[in-house]
């Protein structure tokens, strides 16, 4: 009676430790190793092993072994018949000597006999084989009792759940990786499409080749200087790439007119922001406000812009960024009726129109980014790549930018628009 009580206490201690091990251990291999110790130690079983089942390879791969020789197979194959019988048997003890009708026990008979493997317990969780436990003889030399087998099954269930949890986590991780890859592919496709659109828009205008792409890059520079996160910066770039998409519907002869266009043609051209908005609105962009940037990139803070003559706070922030980027590119590229202006004049122009056409804090951010590049504070040469290496003369422009930045105090606070 006393012995039975002690045996129970010893076994329950092992079972409790096993439950804790399975639910708390972070390291899977370690959990399996400890679980095997607990199982063997609870009934003083001389040797054993825990294997995990791979249903793709139909293989049982040993995760932990105790007392099995180096020549004991670490990978054991199951055939269809074995699988079927294991599933029918469920999570119950199989005596190896009684199971020789199954191919599995015929194939590995010699290894099992050599190491006196007496029991096999298929780990069946939710009608799936997740693994197998092999157990040798007991240290007392006695046969396994029905109580022993119940204890083994209880502990095996814990180990099986541990393996099933691990499999589930691995599957979740695999799916999450796959989703991430799909998302990245989708983002890449979106970016490529946006760039293709920008190129298509620019092809229409032979005098301003590359304009949309440059406006995208300038918008990116401004957003980045404002400290926006990577996604928001990318959103600003996309808004720049697509701001002129409405021009696709404007007649080429108007866009490419080698003279100042007349009022009627101008009215036609000025429809492009609203048309661009209509084109972009039905598209599900990863960033909001891309259609708004197209619609309002010709608005001015003083209300003298078009199409709606909006005032400062009514203009979407992203449209203010694209407006500045668009104007800067217009001033720094040759037009059919006008050569590009020198950099110093453009800085003056930006300064003069700050608060009227452009948001002051954006002019500040833009000038600041330019200054950082010219003084070497920023290593990338984005402006030089976009404008040509000789256009910005540091010795002339740096003092001017410094003066401009000293003179320009932001008159309105940043009102970042969420691009999520």
């Amino acid at each position, binding site marked *: 009676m006393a012995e039975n009580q002690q045996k129970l206490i010893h076994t329950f201690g092992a079972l409790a*430790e096993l439950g804790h091990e399975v639910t708390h251990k972070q390291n899977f291999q370690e959990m399996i190793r400890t679980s095997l110790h607990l199982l063997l*130690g609870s009934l003083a079983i001389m*040797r054993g092993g825990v294997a995990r089942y791979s249903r793709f390879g139909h293989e049982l791969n040993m995760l932990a072994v105790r007392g099995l020789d180096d020549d004991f197979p670490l990978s054991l194959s199951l055939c269809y018949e074995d699988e079927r019988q294991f599933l029918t048997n469920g999570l119950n003890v199989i005596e190896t000597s009684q199971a020789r009708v199954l191919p599995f026990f015929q194939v590995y008979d010699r290894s099992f006999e050599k190491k006196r493997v007496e029991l096999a317990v298929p780990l069946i969780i939710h009608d799936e084989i997740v693994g197998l436990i092999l157990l040798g003889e007991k240290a007392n030399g006695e046969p396994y009792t029905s109580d022993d087998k119940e204890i083994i099954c209880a502990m095996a269930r814990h180990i099986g759940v541990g393996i099933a949890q691990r499999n589930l986590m691995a599957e979740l991780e695999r799916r999450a990786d796959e989703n991430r890859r799909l998302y990245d592919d989708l983002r890449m496709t979106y970016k490529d499409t946006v760039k293709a659109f920008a190129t298509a828009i620019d092809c229409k205008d032979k005098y301003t080749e590359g304009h949309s792409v440059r406006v995208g890059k300038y918008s990116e520079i401004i957003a980045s200087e404002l400290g926006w996160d990577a996604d928001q910066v990318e959103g600003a770039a996309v808004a720049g790439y697509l701001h002129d998409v409405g021009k696709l519907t404007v007649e080429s002869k108007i866009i490419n007119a080698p003279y100042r266009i007349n009022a009627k043609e101008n009215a036609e051209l000025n429809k492009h922001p609203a048309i661009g908005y209509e084109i972009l609105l039905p598209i599900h962009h990863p960033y909001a406000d891309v259609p708004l940037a197209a619609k309002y990139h010709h608005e001015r803070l003083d209300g003298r812009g078009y199409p709606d003559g909006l005032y400062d706070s009514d203009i979407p922030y992203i449209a203010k960024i694209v407006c500045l980027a668009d104007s800067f590119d217009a001033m720094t590229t040759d037009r059919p009726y006008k050569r590009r202006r020198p950099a110093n004049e453009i800085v003056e122009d930006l300064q003069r129109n700050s608060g009227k056409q452009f948001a002051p804090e954006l002019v500040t951010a833009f000038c600041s980014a330019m200054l950082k590049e010219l003084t070497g504070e920023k290593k990338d040469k984005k402006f030089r790549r976009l404008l040509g290496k000789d256009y910005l003369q540091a010795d002339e422009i740096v003092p001017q930018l410094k003066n401009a930045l000293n003179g320009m105090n932001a008159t309105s606070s940043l009102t970042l628009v969420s691009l999520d």
Partner: protein
Amino acid sequence: MNTEPKISVQTTGETTTVFATDYLNKLSGEKIERECKRQLDAGCKTIVVNFAETEIVNSIGVSILLGVIDAASDKGASVVFSDVNENTIELFQMLGLTNHVIMDNG
């Protein structure tokens, strides 16, 4: 931080005595097992595990001691458990470990 418990080992001729810690669990047990296997590989013929300081041996401890017994058996060496307290003797007897070792309680 190294939390691995320190175990004492004494070797006299072909006999090595390993002193188990107060609680024979996985951490201390695996260290004992490693040490015993190292001594057996070095030609030790008798492994003495001294339990004078040991109050509790849990299931993991039992599994590890079975590993020592198995390794000694493979090498043709014998295992002696010495200074084992009464509760632990009962546990070893109940589980059949005493069939494989010499019990020496002075």
